[in-house]
């Protein structure tokens, strides 16, 4: 049909933000399942967990925590910058955030790499000789930080897309809900790490 009727564009920023919050809620519940498993096994194998946690590199963990906290700040600043109409600053702050995300992954790569060098990885023969609690700790460590790193990657891609959209003017001062949602997602990634860090690195 030539005279096909198209849907009227419908824009509702409150709805978009609400949708994002609900989605963030489901992400928290996803990790919530892991936190349950963590708490069950930690209470069952308290001593093993403490011994195993000693093996983690608290220094890299701390550096990554600082990196994520700062990146959360820069992404929040980019939202404010866009609201005041400063496109150049927005892009710079966003690029900084993306750079920090990348830095986090680099650190993670070296951290995991070191573990692999010591034959500490899921399924290795050394792992199977460990005490049961230690085995579960490392299993949880790799699973939780791995899933978190996956979220970092997703967040990074999201921020890169948003960066492009600001560059090409599809996200503007008056239509900035996408940036705000991207920022919200990035805060979620940060928030989860804030819980992972003490639970995995600081319990020894």
């Amino acid at each position, binding site marked *: 049909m030539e005279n096909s*009727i198209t*849907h*009227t564009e419908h824009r509702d920023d409150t*709805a978009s933000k609400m949708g994002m919050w609900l989605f963030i809620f489901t992400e928290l519940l996803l990790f*919530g*399942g892991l936190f349950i498993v963590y708490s069950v096994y930690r209470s069952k194998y308290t001593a093993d967990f403490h011994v195993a946690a000693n093996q983690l590199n608290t220094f890299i963990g701390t550096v990554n925590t600082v990196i994520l906290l700062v990146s959360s700040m820069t992404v929040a600043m980019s939202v404010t910058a866009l609201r005041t109409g400063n496109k150049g600053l927005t892009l710079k702050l966003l690029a900084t955030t993306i750079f920090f995300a990348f830095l986090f992954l680099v650190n993670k790569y070296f951290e995991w790499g070191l573990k692999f060098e010591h034959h500490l990885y899921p399924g290795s023969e050394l792992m199977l000789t460990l005490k049961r609690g230690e085995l579960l700790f490392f299993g949880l460590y790799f*699973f939780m930080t791995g899933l978190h790193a996956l979220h970092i990657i997703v967040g990074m891609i999201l921020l890169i897309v948003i960066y492009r959209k600001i560059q090409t003017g599809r996200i503007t001062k008056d239509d900035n809900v996408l940036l705000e949602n991207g920022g919200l997602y990035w805060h979620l990634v940060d928030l989860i790490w804030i819980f992972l860090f003490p639970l995995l690195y600081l319990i020894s």
Partner: protein
Amino acid sequence: MEISAIENSYLKHGTKYKGILGWLTSTDHKRIGLMYMYAIMIFFLVGGLLGGLMRLELFRPGQDYITAQTYNAVFTVHGVIMIFLVVIPGLAAVFGNILMPIMIGARDVAFPKLNLFSFYIYIFGAILAISSQFLGKGAPDTGWTFYAPYSTDTNTNVVAAVLAAFVLGFSSILTGLNFIVTIHRMRAPGMTWFKMPLFPWSLYATAWIQLLATPIVGITLLMIIAERWFKIGFFDPNLGGDPILFQHLFWIYSHPAVYIMILPAMGVITEIIPTFSQKRVFGYKAIVFSSVAIAAVGYLVWGHHMYTAGMSVTARWFFSLLTFIVAVPSAIKVFNWISTMYKGSINLQPPFFFTMAFIFNFMIGGLTGLVLGSLATDIHVHDTAFVVAHFHYIIFGGMGFAFLAAIHYWFPKIYGRMYNNKLANTSCALIFGGFTLLYFPQFIIGLQGMPRRYFDYLPKYEWGQVFSFFGAIVLGIGILIMLINLFKSARKGKIASSNPWGGKTLEWTIASPPTVENFEEIPIITEGPYEYK
């Protein structure tokens, strides 16, 4: 003039593309709903045929047609298809999509593109589920529950099936999210929360369960995959893990999932009864609050699947109590339905017959649920055919019949045409009769000790299996007649008026079938949804 209603409707107008592409790229909630419906029908027939294959094998004791291993695969695939592909998306994705926006006076859902995206995730999950049957080292044989540690040990293709369930869960979450935001933000002016029709209300409660429960099973399924690939040992006692923990995590989702199936069904029934009684629904607020209560309490009863699995007495006592409590709001609804009919001018039409069958089945299913929810009796009937009969009474007898009621109720709205009443009534009678003949004997042989998921049995259970087999045949014929009737009528049926049943909710105020935009002008709501004179 009325033919032009069809010509002007969403069925003929869509996107810039013509034909099938116009459907596949459409973000129109009605088209997406219909696509879900056709997909679900196909999967239902596949799942149903697998169920028939099991009945055939069980017709006589001993091995007749398929081996024990094949039988295990068949009941697993039957379960995965029916649960994850048919009943969980069933009413919400089909009738929720087609009608909820219209019933609240909106032009579409809040996120139409996301809605189409959910559909494609669903199809992707479906492909994964089906492919798990053919790829790898044989079809999964764990049952749809994927209980560890067997699911982490067996050589069959569990990963694909588990991944499918994960992907489908994601689709379900996005649909739920979409509906919650739609209902919050897009109700027509004047439609306060308590002027909203009850089907959207039930979808709202359902959407919250989808959102709150599905992530838990998502992460649990990922843990199963990680365990199979990397030997992490979350659920393997040899590696320090705890298989009971898997059961907990699994049922934290999968019990609420039962309410994801049945709540929208109750919503459909609550729409149909006032229309065919021409009377205001009895206890509107009681129905609203019972939906919310079912969603809330239903989240906390998962332990009743695990009475015999090893839980403390306190935990079992607690879960049993909560199970009895969740029965109360369900019963409130039944009382409300009956009271709505009281002194109404009942109009005996096919949707109403399906609704009656629903209430009858749902009561049997619900009350036998209490037998299973009691600590002592559950020990006797746990893992028997009694359980099989119970949940088929809820899922098929309840949700399935509500689906059929919904399709007969909204058929003229969706297609703008009417089906053959006589054939519809015949199919209803056959489906109900076949269903009863199929599942009721399973209660009895279950009580006598027939275990579930066994492909062989003692001769004393043979009579029940024979009855069930013939019930399945009658049921199949009924479904076939119904499908023929509906498919023929969708193309060539008599043109239906915009309000053939005299309904009062918003979908009956617009053309049949609706235009792409649903409403020329968004209506302003001044009174409740069921104000019959």
